C-alpha cells in the first residue's frame, strides 16, 4: 500500500527527464488542454466536413468500384487511426511504466476506448464496402483479419484496466499488456499475411491501381487530418475529465475524513 501511494505522488524527477516532467503537473495540463481543446475540435470538425463533402459529392467515382469507393473517405482514416492509436497507447504505457507518470497512466486508459471506437468504425465501413465489392459482408482477407485482432487487443486492454479494485493496479497491468501487444503486433500482422497467402491467392486489394487519382487523394488527406484532430480532441477531453474526476474523488475523500475527524463518528 505504501508503494502505491508513493508511486502516484510527485517524486523528484530524475535528471534529464525535466523536459517531460514539465507536463506532469495536472494543473498545467488542464490549463493547456482547456486552451487547445476548442481549437482542436473546431479544426478537426471543419477539416472532416470539408473532406467528406468534397469526397462524397465532388470527387469522381471510381471506374471500377463506382460510388462505393467513397466509403474510403471514412474507412482509410479510421484504419490509420486504429493502428496509430495502439502505438499511442503503447507509448503512453511505456512512459507510465518507466517514469511512473500519473498522467500517462490516465492517457493510456483514455486512449484505448477511442482507439477501439475507430477500429470498430474501420471494421464496419470495411464490411459495408465489402458487400457490394466482394459480394460478402466479411472476407477473411489478411487486412481485415489483422484489424479484427487489433480490435480484440483494444478490448482486452479496456476490460483489463477496469477489472481491478485499485485503479493503480489496473494501470500497471494495462501498461504491461499494451507493451506486450505492441511488440506482438508486427508478428500477428506478418502471420496473418502469411496465412492468407497460403490459404487463398491474392484477392482484390483496396489499392490495386498503381496510384490514386489526385482528385481522390485530396479529400482523403482532409478527412484523414480531420479524423486525427478529432481523435486527439476526444482523448484530450476524456483525459481532462479523468483528471478532474480524480481531483473530485480526492476532495470528497478529504471532506469525508475531516467530517469523521470532527464528529468522531468512527470512534
Amino acid at each position: 500500500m505504501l508503494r502505491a501511494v508513493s508511486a502516484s505522488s510527485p517524486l523528484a524527477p530524475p535528471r534529464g527527464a525535466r523536459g517531460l516532467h514539465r507536463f506532469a503537473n495536472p494543473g498545467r495540463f488542464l490549463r493547456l488542454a482547456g486552451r487547445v481543446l476548442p481549437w482542436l475540435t473546431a479544426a478537426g470538425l471543419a477539416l472532416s466536413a470539408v473532406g467528406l463533402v468534397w469526397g462524397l459529392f465532388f470527387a469522381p467515382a471510381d471506374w471500377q468500384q463506382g460510388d462505393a469507393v467513397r466509403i474510403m473517405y471514412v474507412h482509410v482514416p479510421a484504419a490509420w487511426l486504429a493502428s496509430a492509436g495502439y502505438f499511442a497507447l503503447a507509448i503512453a504505457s511505456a512512459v507510465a511504466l518507466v517514469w511512473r507518470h500519473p498522467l500517462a497512466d490516465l492517457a493510456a486508459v483514455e486512449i484505448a476506448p477511442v482507439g477501439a471506437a475507430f477500429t470498430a468504425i474501420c471494421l464496419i465501413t470495411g464490411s459495408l464496402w465489402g458487400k457490394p465489392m466482394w459480394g460478402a459482408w466479411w472476407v477473411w482477407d489478411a487486412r481485415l483479419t489483422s484489424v479484427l485482432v487489433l480490435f480484440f487487443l483494444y478490448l482486452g486492454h479496456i476490460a483489463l484496466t477496469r477489472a481491478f479494485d485499485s485503479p493503480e493496479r489496473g494501470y500497471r497491468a494495462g501498461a504491461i499488456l499494451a507493451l506486450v501487444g505492441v511488440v506482438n503486433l508486427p508478428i500477428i500482422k506478418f502471420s496473418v499475411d502469411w496465412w492468407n497467402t497460403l490459404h487463398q491467392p491474392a484477392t482484390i486489394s483496396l489499392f490495386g491501381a498503381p496510384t490514386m487519382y489526385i482528385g481522390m487523394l485530396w479529400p482523403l488527406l482532409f478527412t484523414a487530418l480531420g479524423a486525427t484532430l478529432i481523435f486527439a480532441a476526444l482523448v484530450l477531453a476524456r483525459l481532462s475529465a479523468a483528471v478532474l474526476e480524480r481531483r473530485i474523488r480526492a476532495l470528497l475523500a478529504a471532506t469525508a475524513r475531516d467530517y469523521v475527524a470532527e464528529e468522531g463518528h468512527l470512534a
Partner: protein
Amino acid sequence: MSLLLALIGRDLRLSLRHGADTIAVLLFFFLAGLLFPLAIGPNPETLGRLAPGIVWVCALLAALLPLDRLFGADFEDGTLDQLLLSGLPAAAIALAKAAAHWLTTGLPLLLAAGPLAVMLRISPNGLPVLLACLVPGTFALSLLGTAGAAIVLGARRGGVLLPLLVLPLAVPVLIFATSASSAAAVGLPVRPHFLLLLAVLAFLTPLAPLAGGAALRAAAE
C-alpha cells in the same frame, strides 16, 4: 538455477498430488474434440482435412483452463511474496511457472493429441507434422498464458478476462502451426512453417517471462 529447478519441481509435485487438474484438461481436450465429428458429421474426408485445425483449437482452449489458478493459490497464501523475496528474479519465477505449466498441461496434451488426431482420421503423413509442431507450439502457449495469468492476477473475474488477453496474442502460433499441417497435406515443404513457429517461440521465451515478471511484481505491491 537450482532455485529455478526447485520451483519447477515444487509445482510439479503439487500438480501430481492434485492430479485432477491435469485430468480435467485432458478430458476437456477430448470432449471438445469429440464435439466436432458430432457437429460436422462423420465423413472421413472432411474430418481428415479439418483434423489438425480441430486438434490445435482444442489444445489452445484446453491450455487456457489451468491458467486461472496458476498463480492464484500462491498469491492468496503469500507464497508469491516469499518467492519474490527469494532472490530469484521475477522473470525467472514466471519462466519456472511456464515450464511447470507446460510439463503438466502441454506434455499431456501432446500425448493425447495423437490418439485424438487418429480418431479424427488425420492423414498418415500429417500426424508427425502435427505432433512436431505441438511441441514448440504448446510451449509458446504456456509462455503467453503465464504472462497473461500474471497480468490478470488480482483482477475481478480474471478467469473470464484471461482468454480475451491471451487468444489474440496466440494467433501467430496457431497460424504457423496449422499452416505446417496444411502444407504437409498437399505435399509442400513443412520446414519454413516449422522454423517460423520456432522463431515465435524464440521471441516469446525472453519476452513473455519479462512481462510476466513485471506483472508479478506489480501484483505483489
